């Protein structure tokens, strides 16, 4: 080392801030008002551009009438809405997206995750859209259409490796109860059809209310409908010129 110092982090106690070391900066940058105004202007501009205007644009979208006479997007049932809360509090979004990407952009459509890509209209009724940014697991935007079996979902949530060997999805056994079979005359609501080798001897495995709601929500995820022309009012990323 060229200059031997008493301290590895520089001279001490002589930490001469604001002396010798610093050159004089441009005049304009000496004024707090000038900097404050500039700084605030930049962030407010981006707020308007990335929050306010897109919000205005998608808020103009309205549910549409489909050819079959149904309104789209349909309102979720109360149970499915509860299920969405479960989806949110268990953080499924950290492994699953809910958006089918544009045609020819990624393998979404060819993987069968949807018949068309997702558009803003699909989410108009959602207070919290869970678009997601991660695909440790498959996209779930249309899982209700792809996998309509309640029992399959129960089994999969109870232990993903029963339905999907090699899965790294965590088991959600805490969403299920085990009820002794002995002394029961009726089969409990939400009973899961456990395969022999996974059954709990002497017990029914029963989906809790939360599991039932969650699965109801998953089944409601079906957004493949063909939309009428102009339904998107210029917000469809694939139809730029309309």
């Amino acid at each position, binding site marked *: 080392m060229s200059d031997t110092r008493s301290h*590895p982090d520089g*001279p001490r106690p*002589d930490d001469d801030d604001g002396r010798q070391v610093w050159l004089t*900066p441009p005049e304009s940058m000496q004024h707090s008002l000038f900097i404050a105004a500039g700084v605030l202007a930049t*962030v407010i501009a981006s707020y308007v551009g990335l929050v306010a205007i897109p919000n205005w644009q998608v808020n103009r979208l309205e549910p549409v009438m489909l050819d079959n006479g149904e309104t789209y997007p349909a309102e979720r049932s109360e149970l499915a809405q509860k299920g969405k809360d479960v989806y949110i*509090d268990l953080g499924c979004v950290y*492994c699953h997206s809910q958006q089918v990407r544009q045609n020819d952009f990624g393998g979404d459509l060819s993987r069968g995750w949807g018949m068309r890509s997702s558009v*803003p209209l699909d989410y108009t009724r959602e207070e919290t859209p869970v678009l997601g940014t991660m695909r440790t697991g498959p996209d779930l935007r249309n899982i209700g259409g792809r996998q309509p079996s309640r029992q399959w979902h129960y089994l999969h949530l109870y232990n993903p490796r029963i339905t*999907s060997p090699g899965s790294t999805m965590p088991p959600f056994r805490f969403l299920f109860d085990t009820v002794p079979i002995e002394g029961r005359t009726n089969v409990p609501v939400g009973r899961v059809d456990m395969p022999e080798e996974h059954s709990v001897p002497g017990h029914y495995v029963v989906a809790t209310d939360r599991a039932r709601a969650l699965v109801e929500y998953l089944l409601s995820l079906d957004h493949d409908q063909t939309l009428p022309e102009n339904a998107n009012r210029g917000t469809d990323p694939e139809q*730029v010129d309309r």
Partner: protein
Amino acid sequence: MGDSETDLERDAQSRKAIDASARLPVVFMMASGVFWLLFGTVLAFIASFKLHSPWFLADQAWLTFGRVRPAHLNTMIYGWASMTGIGVLLWLQARLSRVRVPLRKSLIAVGVVWNFAVLAGTVAILAGGSTSVEWLEFPPWVAAILGALFVVVMAASVLTFVRRNVEHVYVSQWYLFGAVFWFPFLYIAGNLVIHGTGASGVAEATANWWYAHNVLGIWFTPIGLAAAYYFIPKVIGRPIHSYYLSLLGFWTLALFYNWAGTHHLIGGPIPLWVQTVGIVASMMMFIPVITVAINHHMTMVGHFDKLEYSPTLRFIVFGAMSYTLVSVQGSLTALRVVNETTHFTHYTIAHAHLGMYAFVTMVLFGSMYYILPRLTGREWSSGPLIRAHFWTTGLGMVLYWVGLTIGGWIQGQMLKNPDIAFIEIVQTTLPYLWSRSFAAALMSVGHFIFAYLVGRMLYEWATDRGKDRLPPMLGGDQ
């Protein structure tokens, strides 16, 4: 200003007074930060392990992956990085403005309440109260508390700057001044729009990524750059290469970083122009990034040998170089051709850690190595332990990034090919996820070493010991 003996003496006295005023609030913020660093580290390790071993701690709802992961992110962001960052910010602004830290009692109260807010938010996430809005998972009532606290910090820092007692304003001060205006606005507006009735549908997603990207962009980045601009010249004892480059760097960052966030939604169901704006802004980010890189590099040239001796310089230079790397990577990732592969994969996770860890966290470590001895009047107790801290975290980070970047890229390529069954992709990523857990273990060791060093220093300070220890030398002939 003359350099007469009396002037120097007077300056030394004024610095002492400033450090004395900063002592309690800054040490409290930093000590709390280190606590949250350890807390977040444990959560990080659990989350990482679960990704390859899903049976691990799977029987309790509060430890499920989808809760531990956001709990990790939020303790690191709002606990470790924000609290420590505020400590650095308060101290730097006071030192550079040459005035004492104002509102000291309020700032300590802020620190105390802050800890409770982060704790409450974390417990809420683990108990099922998460909002699942990325980077804003704390329940709204916790966000309301944090928002109010940010305003107090802003007031203290603005007051420091306005009362400044120097003829000119240094680059770092612009960044710090920027940060305390940007972030409270961002945090409050972001929360109001998302948790209020302001936005629904996909507009909430654009608001989400406007917010989340800007937490790094106009909160941690300006603090990190302010620290780098201060400590690099300080430790090597020469002025910054060019003021005009810094000016250009500052204003282009202010102009463009804000707009880049929507590149997190490329290919998704949002109007195309919103995606394009995000991509263009990401490209424009090359200007501030290259400007800062040149400026720092030209300042360092000829002084790289000092890296061997100064803990501060080691960590800060590692951080500053990572800033360049993460920004260049971020800009390239925003290109549609790259994004098509990397979006939705572990590649993005690697990228996020390059920003929040290799850049921000390393710069915060470096700053603490400089600031804490000046506040406590104690030297660090062990050179070898500081070296161990540097190498475990540095190598751990490199391994983390390399493993997940490659693994994520492969994952992305496989996802594009519909002939490959999904489960095959899941299996292919496993070795890379294991490499991440290994890296996480290395980094955790580093964090515990660092916590020991800080803890020991604070203990000696509190018990009035260890005053005449000499500073540890890291390299060379000791």
